[in-house]
């Protein structure tokens, strides 16, 4: 009974994930693609919960669905690109080749799954404690994986600086003035004005789109 329920849940969320993933590719409107992608993320979070990894599931929702996709939706709304993609003609004669290669790929994947045969049905080492809880992740993150953690934080810092540089388009004098402010204040101010300058510059296409 419980196993049946587990399989039913797996089927449900796998179908949701695959369906939404296909919709991401098939939809012409980027906003529809974005919403479908959020569906994929939520389905995968459900899979993570079923794999006894609740922390990763929660972070998946917070980071992917709550932060990254909000930014994407924000940019799509800001740029207001609704026009359907025009498909270039050069793709036409590539379609049969693509189908052929896809068939080869499917055959290959089917062979791999077939030849691997029995995969484990449950955890290999059932005596070990489960690993998905917050404390176990925190402990390894700050002991064994401390160096990757620090490198990731430097990566994030670089991303902040890069995003501000791209969004700002400021003159040298403005940058000098901003450099005089303290570091925290600098980031905050630059990010804020980045938002505003992005808005004020992009308002024109938004308006014309609304009128059309």
């Amino acid at each position, binding site marked *: 009974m419980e196993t049946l329920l587990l399989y039913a849940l797996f089927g449900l969320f796998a179908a949701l994930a695959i369906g939404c*993933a296909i919709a991401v590719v098939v939809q012409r409107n980027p906003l529809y693609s974005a919403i479908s992608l959020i569906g994929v993320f939520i389905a995968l979070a459900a899979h993570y919960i079923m794999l006894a990894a609740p922390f990763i599931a929660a972070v998946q929702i917070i980071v992917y669905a709550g932060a990254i996709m909000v930014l994407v939706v924000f940019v799509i709304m800001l740029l207001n690109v609704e026009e359907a993609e025009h498909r270039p003609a050069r793709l036409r004669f590539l379609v049969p080749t693509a189908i052929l290669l896809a068939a080869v790929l499917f055959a290959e994947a089917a062979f791999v799954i077939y030849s691997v045969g029995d995969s484990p049905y449950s955890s290999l080492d059932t005596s070990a404690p489960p690993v998905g809880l917050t404390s176990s992740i925190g402990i390894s993150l700050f002991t064994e994986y401390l160096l990757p953690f620090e490198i990731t934080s430097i990566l994030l810092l670089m991303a902040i600086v890069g995003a501000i540089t791209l969004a700002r388009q400021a003159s040298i004098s403005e940058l000098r003035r901003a450099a005089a402010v303290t570091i925290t204040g600098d980031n905050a101010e630059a990010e804020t004005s980045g938002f505003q300058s992005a808005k004020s510059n992009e308002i024109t296409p938004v308006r014309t789109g609304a009128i059309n």
Partner: protein
Amino acid sequence: MIPLAWYLALSAVLFTIGAAGVLIKRNAIAMFMCIELMLNSVNLTFVAFSSFFRDVSGQLIVFIVMTVAAAEAAVGLGIIIAIFRNRESLDVDDASILKL
């Protein structure tokens, strides 16, 4: 429990759809989203292995992949906005020369 191979198969399907999307799509934001889809399918395999081998490393790698994805989103969307400002288009074929 669900067999491990099922998760791997699901992940492979998602990855293929994402890769196909990157090749088919011409809209920069849509391509970006397909890349996110591929990253997510890889995350699924990591979590599945981590759960089956009772080893926390897989989940930590997922954690770091998510951070990289967040950084990628910030910079990538900044680049997309900069391209759109200069070209009034999100089509990647329009942005084929190496300057803005």
